[in-house]
């Protein structure tokens, strides 16, 4: 039983480390800040979640489990906030302009509808 739990820990922590590696590769290889933020926040949240999942069998129940999950939730919260703040700081100003309703369409009427910016 404890061998199975140790095996589960090794597998989950290794998967988490692979996600961290993916996030770091994204940080180094993506072209601009927004895509890098995307890579970092998604990969690191899931990576930390897998690491925490892997460490749950090694911690004493239930206080150890609550502590580990609290660490993951706090990292999620702060990562999300920092991602929002950074993205707000680097968003290009032209994203704030919205199209007026009666502007002439600049695509062929039969072409598929262009998606609008947020």
């Amino acid at each position: 039983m404890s061998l199975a739990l140790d095996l589960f820990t090794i597998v989950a922590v290794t998967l988490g480390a692979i996600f961290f590696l993916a996030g770091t590769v994204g940080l180094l290889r993506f072209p601009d800040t927004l895509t890098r933020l995307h890579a970092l926040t998604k990969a690191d949240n899931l990576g930390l979640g897998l690491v925490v999942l892997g460490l749950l069998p090694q911690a004493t129940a239930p206080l150890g489990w609550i502590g580990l999950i609290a660490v993951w939730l706090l990292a999620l919260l702060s990562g999300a906030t920092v991602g929002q703040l950074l993205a707000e700081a680097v968003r290009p100003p032209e994203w704030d302009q919205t199209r007026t309703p009666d502007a002439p369409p600049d695509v062929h009427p039969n072409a598929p509808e262009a998606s609008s910016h947020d």
Partner: protein
Amino acid sequence: MTSALVVDAALILLVLGLALWITAARAAYGAAVGFVAYGLLLTLVWVRLAAVDVAMTEAALGSGLTGLLLLGAAARLAPYEAAEHQRRPGLGLRVLVGILCAAIAAGLAAVVLLLPDPAPSQALAVAAHLPATGLGNPVTGVLMAYRAVDTLLESVVLVPALIGVWSLSTEMSWGGRPGFLTPCRSGSALPLLARMLPPFGILVGIHLVWAGADDPGGKFQGAAVLAAMWILVMVAGLREPPPVSDRLMRFLLVVGPLCFIGIGAAGIRLAGAFLAYPEAYAKPLIIAIEVGLTISVTAVLGLLLAGPPVPEPQYQRQSRRRS
């Protein structure tokens, strides 16, 4: 080579790499970011050295609050950085200084390798007398009972540091609000964090102070967490920093050291020496000192980061400009 040695070697390589980055980075902002990461890695090093109390203090104060200080300064000094690079010393001087610094590092390394074996230690003496204080954590015992004079002087020295920071304002701004933590009013992510996190942060901070009696923790770590929550609330714009002439805040700043000095002076009468605790009342007195010191150190740490006061119209201008 055991796996512990491999982990230690990997940690050391990362720490040295980050130290090189801090020394060689082009921009001060990059060096400050590297410093925060360096502090977190040092926390792991302290855990490997079996000093968990020190690890918590390094994470909270050395990496967190110092990092915040340095990041703010790097942002403020960015306009003046280009002129700095022209004033670097020439290559010959840098090589000479590098050789001399390497010699100093080699001397220290020789000291490390020639340390006496078996190592002299106070650990047994501390452990022998710890039950008399009612504490379970030997580091807290050293801080509050054996070397209480050091802790008293440390908590007292924070107040002149704050007065020094306050005195760096212009004469017409005395009495205004501290101006370094101008609130960032764009978006709603930071106010949301500042509403959600402080309840947990305050709970964690108070727990750290209380648990420091028997487990790793203590008042400096707890006070740093509480100060960080206060700073978060100020930066998000939910609360304004108090003006420096506020009487309640000034009282809270000194209540800790005054409590400490008072109990210490009472110890002359009741137990024979300054800062000696009477036998049966050691634990309650230590707890009283810790509560007072937590409040004071929290206030001092938060205000050290808030900076010198600025006149009220300038404070309002700064707040409006950030929105």
